[in-house]
C-alpha cells in the first residue's frame, strides 16, 4: 500500500493568513492520525515559519512600491505513511547569517516585541529543521516530523 500524499498552497504574505496557513497544514496531516499535542506542535512550527517570512522576509529592505514583486508564501507538504515533511518558501530578503538567526532569543526586531524564539520553537516541536536562504532571493524552511513516535521529554 503506497500511502503518500502531497499538497501545495500559496497565499499572500499577510498577518491575517497566518491562521489560515497553520489550519491548512493541520487539516492535511489529519490522515496520519496525530495526537492533539502533535497537531499543536506542527501548527506552532508552521506559524513560526510563516510569521518569520511575513515580518522578516517581506517586512524589511524590500520596497513594496518597487515593481515586479509580489509577496507570496508557498507551503508544500508531503505525507508518507506517518512521516510529515513541510516546506515554507518565500521570495523575501533572505537571511544573511542563518546561524545567528537560529540562536534562541536573537531577534533583529526587539522593539517590536519579537521574542527571538521562532527557530527555537520550530526545532523543539519538529524532529528536524533545515533552512536554506539567499540574500535578495528568499528563504526555504524545511521541517520533518514523525507522527506517533514517543519521544523523551525533558522537564
Amino acid at each position, binding site marked *: 500500500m503506497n500511502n503518500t500524499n502531497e499538497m501545495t498552497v500559496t497565499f499572500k504574505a499577510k498577518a491575517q493568513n*497566518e491562521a489560515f496557513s497553520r489550519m491548512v497544514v493541520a487539516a492535511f496531516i489529519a490522515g496520519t492520525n496525530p495526537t492533539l*499535542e502533535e497537531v*499543536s506542535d506542527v501548527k506552532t512550527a508552521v506559524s513560526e515559519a510563516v510569521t518569520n517570512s511575513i515580518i522578516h522576509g517581506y517586512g524589511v529592505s524590500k520596497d513594496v512600491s518597487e515593481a515586479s514583486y509580489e509577496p507570496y508564501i508557498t507551503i508544500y507538504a508531503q505525507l508518507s505513511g506517518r512521516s510529515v515533511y513541510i516546506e515554507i518558501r518565500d521570495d523575501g530578503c533572505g537571511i544573511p547569517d542563518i546561524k545567528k538567526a537560529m540562536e534562541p532569543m536573537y531577534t533583529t526586531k526587539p522593539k517590536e516585541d519579537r521574542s527571538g524564539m521562532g527557530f527555537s520553537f520550530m526545532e523543539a516541536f519538529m524532529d528536524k529543521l533545515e533552512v536554506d536562504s539567499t540574500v535578495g532571493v528568499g528563504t526555504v524552511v524545511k521541517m520533518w516530523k514523525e507522527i506517533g513516535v514517543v519521544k523523551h521529554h525533558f522537564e
Partner: protein
Amino acid sequence: MDYQYKNGVFIYYLPKELDHYYADKLKRKSQSVFEDESINYLIFDFSNTVFMDSSGIGLITGRFRKIFDKGGKVYVVNVNPAIDKLLLLSGIYSIVKKKDTKEDIIKEMVKGGYYE
C-alpha cells in the same frame, strides 16, 4: 472584551489564537493604557486561548519590560497544557508567575498590600 484596567490592575483577556496578527492588534489597542496609567499587576488570562506561538511570548516580555522597572508584577492564568509547554520552553516562568485561578492571584495581591 480584550482587556480591562482598574485600580492599577491590568488584565488581558487573550484571544482564541494568540499569534503575530492578534498579538500586534492587542498591543496597539492597549498601548495608551501602558503609557498613561501606572500598572502594578499585569495578568494574562488564557481561558479562551487554544493556540499560541512565539508572538505571544513577545507580547508578554514586551509588556513586562514596560511595567517591571516600576515594580509591576506579571501573572499568567488558566493556561492549557499546549500553551504551558511553550511558556516553559521559552523560559518565561523566570519573570512571570503562573496561577491556576484568578482568585489565587487576588490572594497574592492582598498579601502584597492591594485593596480593591
